[in-house]
């Protein structure tokens, strides 16, 4: 019973991070801050959800697949953060504290 509870808590936390990330995306004044909010929410939110689902899922094969999904998304969101930041800096958009 405790495994299901733990998984549920993890997934709920993951969802909470997504919500926080979205609110950050809406509220923060400029792109770089929003970028900060996004990458955090992306990485952690999905990471926790993957962990929670992995606990509940039956076979090891599926756990590996979940790990692969999480790895691919984590890498691509990190790279996207970097590239978009580079893009914004080069296009000298209004950035607070520049």
């Amino acid at each position, binding site marked *: 019973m405790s495994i299901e509870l733990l998984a549920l808590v993890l*997934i709920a936390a993951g969802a909470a991070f*997504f919500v926080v990330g979205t609110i950050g995306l809406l509220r923060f004044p400029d792109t770089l801050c929003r970028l900060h909010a996004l990458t955090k*929410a*992306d990485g952690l939110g999905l990471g926790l959800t993957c962990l929670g689902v992995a606990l509940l899922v039956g076979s090891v094969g599926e756990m590996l697949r979940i790990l692969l999904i999480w790895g691919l998304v984590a890498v691509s969101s990190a*790279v*996207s953060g970097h590239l978009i930041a580079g893009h914004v800096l080069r*296009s000298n958009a209004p950035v607070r504290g520049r």
Partner: protein
Amino acid sequence: MTLALSIIALVLLASILAGLVPVLRGPQPAERMLAAQLLGTAAVAILLILSLLMEMPVLLDVALVFALLAAITLICFVVVTRREDH
């Protein structure tokens, strides 16, 4: 248990819809692509939860292709919007 998971799926869907606002508002292309990345990841999360709720382990493959899709469109975006003034 399933009730809780369904509610979490609803919350994630709501966060996707909320994430649409920056796609519409964001003045520069980078903003929009940023929001699209978040929506893609949230969709992957929803798929993971649905694979439990609907007992369809096959949805993990679909989630995998979603993640892949996000990576491809990201690289396309970066290439397409890079500066031409070099």
